């Protein structure tokens, strides 16, 4: 079963493009948000299984939002995304409760499912 997705990014063009791509690849995008407040509200209303969160939400921090989203919903998982390279953010990603990180340019249904499967394996062990 494909998970319900929420995409959070302050760049509206990216939100639209990412939604089209992922839906085209068979994913179920239940909502998109461009601020932390919207993201938290949609998370409560739409109950997504996975939230894709940009680490850089203008003045707000995606890392903070990732923490709030995982603490606020049981079983809800967060994948951090960014146009910054993973290398630069490695420590911060490790410290965050997010399931993982995907570079924005590498975003795809396959990449998301692989990452989730990887962490499932990890959790099962």
């Amino acid at each position, binding site marked *: 079963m494909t998970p319900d997705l929420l995409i959070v990014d302050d760049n509206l*063009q990216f939100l639209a*493009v990412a939604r089209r791509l992922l839906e085209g690849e068979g994913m179920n995008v239940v909502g998109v948000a461009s601020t932390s407040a919207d993201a938290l509200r949609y998370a409560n209303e739409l109950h997504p299984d996975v939230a894709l969160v940009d680490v850089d939400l203008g003045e707000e921090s995606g890392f903070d939002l990732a923490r709030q989203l995982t603490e606020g919903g049981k079983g809800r998982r967060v994948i951090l995304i960014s146009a910054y390279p993973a290398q630069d*953010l490695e420590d911060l990603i490790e410290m965050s409760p997010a399931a993982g990180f995907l570079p924005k340019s590498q975003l795809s249904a396959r990449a998301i499912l692989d990452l989730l499967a990887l962490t499932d394996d990890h959790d099962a062990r």
Partner: protein
Amino acid sequence: MLGWVLGVGAPTLIVVGSLPFRSSFGLAGVLFLTLLIVAATSMVGGVRPAVAAVAVGVLAAALADVPPTGSLRVQYQGDLAALLAFVVVGVGIALLVDELGELAEQQAALRRVATIVARDAPPDEVFAAVAEQVGELLPVDMTNLGRFGTDGTMTVVASWNRAGGTIPAVGTVIALGGRNLSTLVAQTGTSARMDRYEESSGAVSTVARTVGSRSAVGTPIFVAGHLWGVMIAASIQERPLPRDTEEQLARFTDLLATAIANAEGRSELAASRVRVVTAADEARRRIERDLHDGTQQRLVSLSLELRTAETAVPPEMTDVRAQLAGVAQGLTEALEDLQEIARGIHPAVLAKGGLGPAVNAFARRSAVPVELDLRADRRLPERVEVAAYYVVAEALTNAAKHAHASVVHIEVAVDDLGLQLMIRDDGRGGADATRGSGLIGLRDRVESLGGRLEITSAVGSGTSLAVTIPIATS
């Protein structure tokens, strides 16, 4: 006291003591010895005892050495001429030696102040030294240095009192106005004196009366052409201060002006360096931001759109799919280049996670293996983090490019006082921070934050960089 004993006693002793050897000594010898005593007396006790020595010497000689002996009468004109010459030369020596002594003391005091000025001591230290040296040198009981404000006040910057105590205290702000010395100097920009305090008025005069000032001299301090403040020397005696007091004070105010101008120049230079570094950082931050939010995001969206288009192409059109995949790959590589450029312009990761994650990321990327000892568990002001980041970046680049090092050891420690950074490599050394290298820029950056950067790079024994940056408590 010693001067008087010497001045009166020694000539008597010489004249009386030389009596048994009169034939071999002669009047000239006795008078010559007495002149030496006059000089010594003037050096020890000043002009008055020295003149007394001349008087005693001439009387004793007339009585004991000049025929008829035992009487003040002088029989031969030659003897009279010798005695008169002795008096003239003796008084001359007394005055000259005293003057020379004063001059030597003044020069010594000026030299002490000049030494302090020359080693770029903080202005407060120079102010205190001048107040004290002038106080000790002149026949005064107190000295003060005041800085004129733009709001019609004067701030006491140094205060010396022969009897001890610090009234008015340094830092005291006194309103100008009324009839008093400081106000007069502030208004006229010239030296002034005050010998009667009965008619004085204003806040400054209240302070002057409190400390018992009875006669005083004030001299303006001009720094780079503008009236900076005033130096006051005051006595608790009724009698006016010596005529040359203004002149004496002026010698010291000239030195003060130099010290103040130097200090102001230095702090202006430091402030301008801070502005330059801050402005450059601000510009770089903006460029990085624009690159990230603009170009980079558009390229990301484009590459996703390309992939969306790719999925719409029927699987059998392998040529088109391969072409699209090639373009997507090219885009990804362009994005990576852009990331590299953006990171070189401004380390955005610093703003997110601070120095620890940024230095860790550096260590992972570094071409030379890095041993990292990171004790930076707290955030620092952004400018400090940026400076430390650039130091690490430059050191790692040098280690890889020029030093051909096989390992770099980085130590980062942060505490309440500031940041300590120690970077050592085992490369070939010989880095020169004074020639056109990135190290100059680093030093500017570190010093603009009040920090220090030390480079040790002997040829053949690696390069080490030690950086400390304080965190301003204000």
